[in-house]
């Protein structure tokens, strides 16, 4: 569930808050803990000129330049996760065993172009 933005959100690429509640996706009867977690997502623009804090690749800088010259031909670079972190989930598996499993790349910490 992403909260309705109280202030005008920055149009630039950055992590946006997204809390995933396992009961919202109907998984609450087999996931013991957590009940949900802050997964976040990347949203926003990668405009020309790419600001330094936008965590961008050289390729993205070039692409924004080309996009500013030829907007219809070349799209803007996209805003994607560049650093993620793991979570552990305690759950019942398909044989009712209790499992504690570590999952990589489940939380978006940083975004970039």
């Amino acid at each position: 569930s992403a909260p309705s933005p109280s202030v005008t959100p920055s149009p630039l690429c950055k992590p946006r808050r997204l809390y995933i509640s396992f009961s919202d996706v109907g998984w609450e009867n087999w996931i013991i803990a957590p009940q949900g977690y802050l997964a976040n997502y990347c949203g926003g623009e990668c405009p020309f000129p790419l600001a330094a804090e936008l965590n961008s690749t050289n390729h993205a800088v070039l692409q924004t330049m080309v996009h500013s010259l030829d907007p219809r031909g070349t799209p803007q670079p996209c805003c994607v996760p560049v650093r993620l972190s793991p979570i552990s989930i305690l759950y019942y598996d398909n044989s009712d065993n209790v499992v504690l499993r570590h999952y990589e790349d489940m939380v978006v910490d940083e975004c970039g172009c």
Partner: protein
Amino acid sequence: LSRQESSLLQSLGLSAKPSPKNPAPVPPVLRRMFQRREALPRPHKDRDPCRVEELSVPGDIVRVFADQGRFLPEGQPQGQLCLRRLLFFNLSVLEEGERLTMARLELQFQHNSYPAPSPGQVLELRLYRVSPRGLPQPRPGRRPLLERSFVRLHKSLPLDLSAALKTPGRNLALLLEISASGRTGSLRSLCASSDSFVATSLLVVTLGRQCRAGRSRR
């Protein structure tokens, strides 16, 4: 959504969405491990994702398997048999290529601290690996998987089987025998302390695919 959901479940290592019919209580050891991890400051920069710090072994998946076995009629040739049980663990959920790094059998009894038996009397525990399909009899002359004696029974008795179960297979059948030995005397009272046997479970730590294949991004 269901197609997306099943592909996400696959990537979480599940063949289908679990629907626990009679879910067992969550083992305290797993609950404590989970809570400890939740308390760590995010993001877990310095934590090795492929190591179970709490048990000091490599691994990213910790499972507790409930015993699906049964008690066997007594009938040990010598000594005083207190308890004989066929332990059975369905390990078929272990994925192809998962590497086992720890296997710990846990015998659970109802309560702690029994009256200490008189000196010279001990309880003896023997554990044999038997065929999941055959008779719950160890092959004649077969050495026990594990043999140990203990004097006092505590609420839980952990037995490390990591070395013995390098390749656990899809099903694991073990024959557990607890007998009293020492001067005949009050063997029956010594046996009584094993009568409060409640259950066994098998804690297994493995290295799953995301750890063996390094940080392969999806």
